[in-house]
């Protein structure tokens, strides 16, 4: 088994190589085809003239080629089915999680909606108060009158009850009148006889 040649050219580029390649890294990029076309063309031309650089490129290619023979492993037969089973399980979990989250989100949204309506109402009221708008004055007057009215004149429901109570009393009076009403005085037998 032959070895890499130990007598290596020193790691110094001539000024021409340095000017052309900018840095030694460019040679690695050259073998990986990572350079723009114009630069690749330039390096290719340089390699024909410069033995040092040509040697370097060859060594880099050797290393690369050797690395590629490091062998490969194969996945086991049940690898795919294992991954797919775990993915399906994860998908199921995700779906359950999502449905729960959407429920919570809907609830929060509804509550937020109500709060928003309320705050809009309060906001407009506050605006009306601040600007003393006729709308506000009307609403306020109406509210004050309603409150005073309610205080002075209790709701009609009570009145009705009272009325019906009054009727009952009158009926009682009638009955008692009937009972108390004195009967016409019975003519005495003597007066009757006297009249005869």
């Amino acid at each position, binding site marked *: *088994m*032959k*070895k*890499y*040649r*130990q007598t290596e050219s020193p790691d110094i580029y001539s000024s021409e190589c340095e000017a052309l390649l900018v*840095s*030694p*890294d*460019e*040679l*690695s*990029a050259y073998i*990986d085809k*990572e350079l723009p076309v114009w630069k690749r063309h330039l390096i290719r031309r340089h390699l024909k003239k410069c033995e040092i650089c040509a040697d370097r490129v060859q*060594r*880099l*290619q*050797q*290393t*690369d*080629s*050797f*690395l*590629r*023979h*490091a*062998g*490969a*492993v*194969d*996945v*086991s037969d049940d*690898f*795919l089915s*294992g*991954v*797919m089973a*775990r*993915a*399906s399980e*994860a*998908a199921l979990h*995700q779906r359950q999680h999502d449905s729960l989250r959407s429920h919570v989100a809907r609830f929060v949204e509804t509550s937020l909606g109500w709060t928003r309506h309320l705050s809009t109402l309060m906001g407009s009221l506050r605006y009306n108060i601040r600007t003393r708008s006729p709308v506000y004055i009307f609403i306020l007057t109406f509210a004050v009158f309603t409150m005073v009215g309610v205080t002075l004149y209790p709701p009609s429901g009570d009145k009705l009850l009272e009325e019906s109570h009054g009727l009952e009393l009158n009926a009682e009076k009638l009955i008692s009148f009937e009972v108390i009403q004195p009967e016409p005085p019975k003519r005495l037998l003597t007066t009757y006889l006297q009249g005869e």
Partner: protein
Amino acid sequence: MFVSDEDLMMKCGKGDIGAFELLVRRYQNPLINYIHRSIDDYHRSEDLSQETFLRVFKSANRYEPTASFRSWLYTIATNLCRNEIRNRSRRNTCSLEGLVEEGEDVHHTEIMRDTRYLPDILLEKKEQRQMIRKALAQLPENQRVALTLVTYQDLRYEEVAEILGCSVGAVKALIHRARQKMKKLLIKAGIGEERVNEKI
């Protein structure tokens, strides 16, 4: 008709489990090899590959095709490998050298297929593979990640830059330094030049 990884990923995000299966089929072999080269333990490589795919699946609905799918996949895998190596060194139960011996298993079918009739060559290849893996394990982490991704996963420098979170220029330097170091390590390991020359 070929559907791009990114399109499959978008479908997967909409709950298409068939699209996900296609992605797994596409990347299961490259991914397990990448992880295996990073942590050198076949069974853990399978676990971590599965974990990588599962993470891809779970975050599919948040995926936006700003970066290539490959970079994204290998970013997840690289992070998992880093954690694995960190945990391992914290546990400190087994040295990487020991793992290289232990990790040498029967799954190297690619090499075995064409050389099984030549036990000597097989042994030589097995030794060579061990040496290469040992050498790779000796590289600084970022150099190893960059070199592995470019050499074995055929990623572009730009994609490696995305994975490592650095510039393309920095990747260029990393790759070059990694190759230089690998060359020295291989010479030290006494790996032949003749065989390599045949292949070029």
